[in-house]
């Protein structure tokens, strides 16, 4: 590392899970954020509950980059099991802070890294009693040491502790004591601050720190969703936890709960409940992950064919199969678009960050009810479970839910006869009625062959007529899903398509490429089926890359299928290790390919 890194470095904590490190780490990242310095934090945790290595990585970026940086400047190595790899990960010129209660194994040392030993465990056991409290406070002590080493504003830390513990003065006291211990020790023993350090700024004004699952839950709340059915699965569980929390806060009262959350017996039941509730006129949703989507496939096809709205959140994790439940990927693109046997196609939204999780959650209900079909919000673990700094969410009070074509009692009373699948206005959508509202609204819903009147049929023409309308309706959906957004160069030769959580790395990659003289255009896909802007973007560029976090370039398949693009006209850059993609992967991929093209 050459020179000072002010408000621009990566801090990583290596811990053991179940030792309470999360709150100390959160304290540090939140403090940085409150100092006005942009940061984002990612958790790399194992698929177990206690005793295994876990990491917390804070990207501090004055430029506001939110992706993983791909390198570490300051490592707090609290887990002896992983010392070796933690040391190796620090960049040249960086720092490694370790617990000097026990002697450091000199074999692990490096010349180009500064090692900072603090006797965390000893300090904790001298200052506190009780084994659990000692373990917890050891973490707070390192937060204190970091405050000194990185120049974190102590006033901010104190305020945070106050906000967190409220009137539990004994907790505040204990935490203050631990912070002070670490802080003082560092001040006395080391040259503070380090070359990597913080400086107050105002860049996070108007921002919040939130994870995508909480944001999506908030979107569901604001959209007026009343029924949530789910079966726990990482990394989607926190979405329903958050929804429950918001409902308890905003929708409980003397007259009872204005929501119903059902922990289903499995994913097949969860989606069945969503279908039942939506059929009956409630806004209903289920959050899940890949294995859940597989299990829901039969019902998804049912909802497609019977034209029942349903909102599904797929918080993608690493597949195939159980895969790596606590790692991230974008590997369910195909199954979300085509889930179920028979000819089926589904509307998908691809949020890139928590703010879009909030918006698209709300949009998903409008689309599902408007189009009378399942709508997928295809998020991932990186967005869903990590802490992102983002603009405060806002809500337009004039916004009303689009409940789609639903005939109310008056309308039903006025018509001659109601036919469930008759598309009167040629928009591909047939008006529906809700059960129990009016005698004339009664109809029969069935996943078996039906004609446009809603009657059972095994007749070829009648069957085909409905199926053709469904195709037409899907095609119309492309005008309704959020359009792709373009940025970057306007008249270059190189275009890059990406979506979802690759956005952070893409924004950064564009800047880096520009530094290297390549002014590329960037199109971020936000919905499926695709709008014409996607086709135009592809046509306009000589070389088009598609950046994905899966092995098989699944979005490219959708582009081929939906737009007629030729496979080899899209150059895939595929990152599927389970860790979030980072800018340099894209930069190198683009430059390498262009280099090869030239020499070829």
């Amino acid at each position, binding site marked *: 590392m050459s020179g000072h890194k002010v408000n621009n470095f990566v801090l990583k904590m290596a811990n053991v899970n179940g030792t309470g490190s999360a709150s100390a780490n959160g304290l540090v990242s939140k403090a940085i*954020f*409150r100092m006005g310095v942009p940061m984002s934090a990612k958790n790399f945790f194992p698929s177990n509950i206690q005793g295994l290595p876990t990491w917390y990585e804070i990207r501090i970026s004055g430029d506001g980059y939110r992706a993983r940086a791909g390198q570490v400047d300051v490592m707090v190595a609290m887990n002896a099991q992983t010392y070796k790899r933690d040391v190796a990960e620090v960049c040249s010129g960086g720092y490694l802070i370790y617990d000097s209660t026990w002697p450091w194994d000199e074999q692990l040392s490096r010349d180009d890294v500064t090692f900072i030993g603090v006797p965390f465990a000893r300090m904790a056991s001298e200052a506190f009693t009780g084994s659990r409290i000692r373990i917890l406070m050891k973490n707070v002590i390192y937060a204190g040491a970091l405050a000194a080493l990185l120049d974190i504003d102590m006033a901010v830390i104190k305020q945070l502790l106050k906000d967190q513990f409220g009137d539990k003065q004994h907790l505040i006291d204990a935490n203050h004591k631990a912070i002070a211990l670490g802080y003082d020790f560092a001040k006395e023993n080391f040259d503070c601050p380090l070359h990597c350090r913080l400086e107050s700024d105002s860049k996070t004004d108007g921002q*919040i*720190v*939130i994870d995508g699952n909480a944001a999506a839950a908030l979107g569901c*709340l*604001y959209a*007026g969703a*009343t*029924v949530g*059915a789910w079966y726990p699965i990482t990394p989607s569980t926190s979405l329903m936890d958050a929804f429950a929390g918001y409902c308890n806060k*905003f*929708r409980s*009262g003397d*007259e*009872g*709960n*204005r929501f*119903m*959350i059902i922990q*289903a*017996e*499995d994913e*097949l*039941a*969860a989606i*069945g*409940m*969503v*279908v*039942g*509730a939506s*059929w*009956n*006129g*409630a806004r209903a949703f289920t959050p899940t992950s890949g294995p859940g989507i597989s299990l829901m496939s*039969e019902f998804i096809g*049912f909802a497609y064919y019977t034209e029942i709205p349903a909102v599904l959140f797929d918080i993608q994790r690493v597949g195939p199969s159980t895969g790596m439940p606590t790692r991230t990927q974008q590997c369910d693109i195909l199954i979300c678009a085509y889930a179920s046997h028979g000819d089926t196609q589904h509307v998908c939204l691809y949020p890139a960050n928590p703010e879009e999780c909030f918006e698209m959650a709300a949009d998903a209900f409008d689309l599902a009810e408007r189009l009378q079909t399942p709508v997928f919000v295809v998020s991932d673990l990186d967005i869903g479970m990590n802490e992102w700094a983002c603009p*405060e*969410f*806002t*809500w*337009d*009070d004039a916004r*009303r839910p689009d409940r789609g074509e639903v005939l109310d009692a008056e309308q039903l*009373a006025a018509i001659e006869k109601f036919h469930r699948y008759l598309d009167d206005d040629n928009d591909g959508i047939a008006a529906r009625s809700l*059960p*129990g*509202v*009016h*005698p004339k*609204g*009664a*109809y*029969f*819903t*069935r*996943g*078996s062959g039906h004609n446009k009147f809603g009657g*059972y049929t095994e007749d070829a023409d009648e069957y085909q007529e409905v199926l053709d309308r469904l195709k037409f309706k899907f095609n119309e959906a492309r005008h309704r899903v959020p359009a792709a957004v373009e940025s970057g160069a306007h008249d270059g030769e190189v275009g890059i398509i990406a979506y979802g959580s690759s956005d952070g790395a893409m924004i950064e990659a564009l800047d880096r490429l520009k530094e290297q003289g390549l002014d590329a255009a960037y199109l971020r896909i936000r919905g499926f089926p695709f709008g014409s802007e996607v086709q135009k973007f592809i046509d306009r560029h000589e070389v088009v890359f598609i950046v994905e976090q899966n092995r098989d370039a699944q979005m490219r398949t959708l582009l081929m299928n939906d737009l007629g693009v030729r496979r080899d006209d899209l150059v895939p850059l595929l990152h599927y290790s389970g860790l979030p993609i980072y800018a340099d992967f894209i930069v190198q991929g683009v430059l390498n390919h262009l280099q090869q093209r030239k020499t070829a």
Partner: protein
Amino acid sequence: MSHIAKPAARHPGQPVNKLGFSERDYEGGMSTLCAGCGHDSITAALVKAFFELDIEPHRVAKLSGIGCSSKTPAYFLSASHGFNSVHGRMPSVVTGANAAERSMAYVGVSGDGDSLSIGIGQFAHAVRRNLNMLYIIENNGVYGLTKGQFSASADLGSKPKKGAPNQLSPIDPVNMAISMGASFVARSFSGDKDQLVPLIKAGIRHDGFALIDVISPCVTFNDHDGSTKSYQYTRDNIVETIHTDFVPPRQEITVDFASGEVTSVRLHDGSHMLLKKVDKAYNADDRAAAISYIQHHQAEGRVVTGLLYFDGAEPEFHQVSGTCQEPLRDLPHNELCPGSEALAKLMKGYR
């Protein structure tokens, strides 16, 4: 929000119920089942029960899975909302539907295949939630629609049309439901309308999960000699425990309670069930005793029918969840969406 349904056409001379509907108004489309199929008799019992209950048809939702039995919602209550879901998954759909709109009546129709093999999980968990619905299993011991394979309710030793007798222990939905906490459990026989109709009425009016397992012979695949689900076998081996009569709200109860063999139970809507003990030793309020009684009879090949377990005090799905009385789907947007100000305030917590 809801409207009173007006009978479509008067059928002069036909008796009408309190709402002015005739029994015809509760009928459905033409059955496409085999002539003589037990399921058609259950359909007829449903028509009669709903007619007598004075329910507006459009306030009823009738749901099913897949199978011959699951086709029957198309054959009763044309004026109600029908839902033919996927195989074995009706309970989850009812759960969602009921969550959205708690004031309608829900009747689920299923088969022994639909409920005890592919759908056993959803059945069990609907029981556990004490979902407010009437759940009818049209139990014939076989998969009718796929041409007669044994189902999980086939009795040990029951003979198929060809091949070897069944050697697997049956799964008894009644037993399951009682032991998993169901609040209303009955068994009946498609051929016994007198028993079935009042049970259906009480099941609909009961606030919670009401199961009626109805032995319903499949004339095409399981009505031969050696079958333990045939008309003949069922008739020969029936043992009635408690016969139920249903008395609507505000109707006088004219029964002699003196003998001590009839008791009256008040349901939530003010209607009453009169329970007449056919077997004096039977108690419908002791889960373990009920199971033991049923199992002992079953071991000797007898089919125990009647209201087998009842608990009117168990909180149903919405009570457990603490949901508001107003159906969720009818809540206005402003009671659901906290609005921009609340959001701004909430955002402060995320700094």
